[in-house]
């Protein structure tokens, strides 16, 4: 039940995108097309889980015992960067269209603060391995949910007569704000 609580909190109550402001760049950049958003969500979830596992091991077995906590930022980002580059290579090899639709945002997963943020939070809260895993999964689901909802709305808004100056990022922000208002309904949810 506690694991479920962590999952739910990361996915809905403190949604990574809509209330923690993590992963905003891809949320804005890749939410134009539903198909791309879905794959971005999955790719991010995948990287999140991988990164959570690896950084947990590094934190638990290298940094903490050696008292090198100040190396957290540097070592985590190194791990994440390598992971992302690895995923990028795999996607490029497996599916060219997918690679194209994710475009320049794949390298940006590196600088996707959702991933770094997740690892830092997990370390800060001293989550266990499984807790980190579930936390990452919840965060990934939350991110995917937000970006897919947003992509659906934005595809719909392509037919709308949005004032020119608000097209693109502007309207995305407003929609995200309203979504955030909606997600406030989950506040305090407990089972």
């Amino acid at each position, binding site marked *: 039940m506690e694991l479920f609580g962590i999952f739910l909190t990361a996915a809905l109550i403190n949604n990574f995108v809509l209330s923690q402001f993590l992963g905003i760049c891809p949320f804005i950049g890749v939410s134009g097309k539903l198909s791309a958003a879905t794959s971005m969500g999955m790719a991010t979830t995948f990287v999140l889980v991988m990164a959570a596992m690896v950084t947990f091991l590094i934190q638990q077995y290298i940094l903490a015992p050696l008292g090198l906590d100040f190396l957290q930022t540097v070592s985590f980002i190194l791990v994440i960067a*390598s992971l992302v580059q690895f995923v990028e290579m795999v996607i490029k090899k497996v599916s060219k269209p997918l690679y194209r639709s994710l475009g320049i945002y794949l390298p940006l997963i590196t600088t996707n603060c959702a991933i770094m943020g997740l690892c830092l939070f997990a370390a800060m809260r001293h989550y266990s391995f499984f807790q980190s895993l579930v936390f990452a999964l919840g965060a990934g689901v939350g991110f995917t949910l937000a970006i897919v909802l947003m992509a659906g709305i934005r595809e719909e808004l392509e037919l709308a007569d949005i004032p*020119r100056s608000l097209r693109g*990022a502007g309207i995305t922000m407003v929609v995200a704000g309203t979504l955030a208002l909606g997600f406030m309904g989950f506040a305090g949810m407990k089972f």
Partner: protein
Amino acid sequence: MSKQMTINAEFAKGLWEHNPVLRQLLGMCPTLAVTTSAINGVGMGLATTFVLTCASLMISLLRKLIPGQVRIASFIVVIATFVTIVDLTMKAQFPEMSKSLGAFIPLIVVNCIILGRAEAFASKNNPGRAIIDALGMGLGFTASLTTLGGIREVLGNGTLFGVQVMPHQYVPWIVMILPAGAFLTLGLMLGIYNKFNHRHEEAALRAARLAAAAKGV
């Protein structure tokens, strides 16, 4: 990027024309997250500017030494080092602000502005220009954050930099300091920024048409 800009233009472009937040939509996470007050915006902006400037300088100095294949990784290590310095410094010197900015100080490491400028500018230009560029971008970032933080603080708390500015009867709109308020305010700010630019573009177009018309006769 074939033409060399003047130093002034190089500096100024980050403030408005290529403003990292409003035009390039970079560094959105801290922009939204920490701007619950103007002072937070200033703090975050300056911290980022410091990292950006130091990292740009370092990368520009090392640009001929770093092999192409590992450049991104090297940039990240350089940036992460400076971020750690800032993080530790702030924890020691400004514990309160460090607390309110929370994880977003270490997260400067993944701020796309810094990596973006490193990749697009510092690794291709001499240290002097790199510093000017970084300062311009950093101050543009700081200005955007402060404005956003100011608006949210005034409406959401009735204060600006902690000083009560709204009349006493004013009931603060709490939503403004909640996540939703951040999104909505930034969305409208982007709209206003674009509106200004569109006005400018339209005026330029009208001028061009007039010129064309004058020449045609």
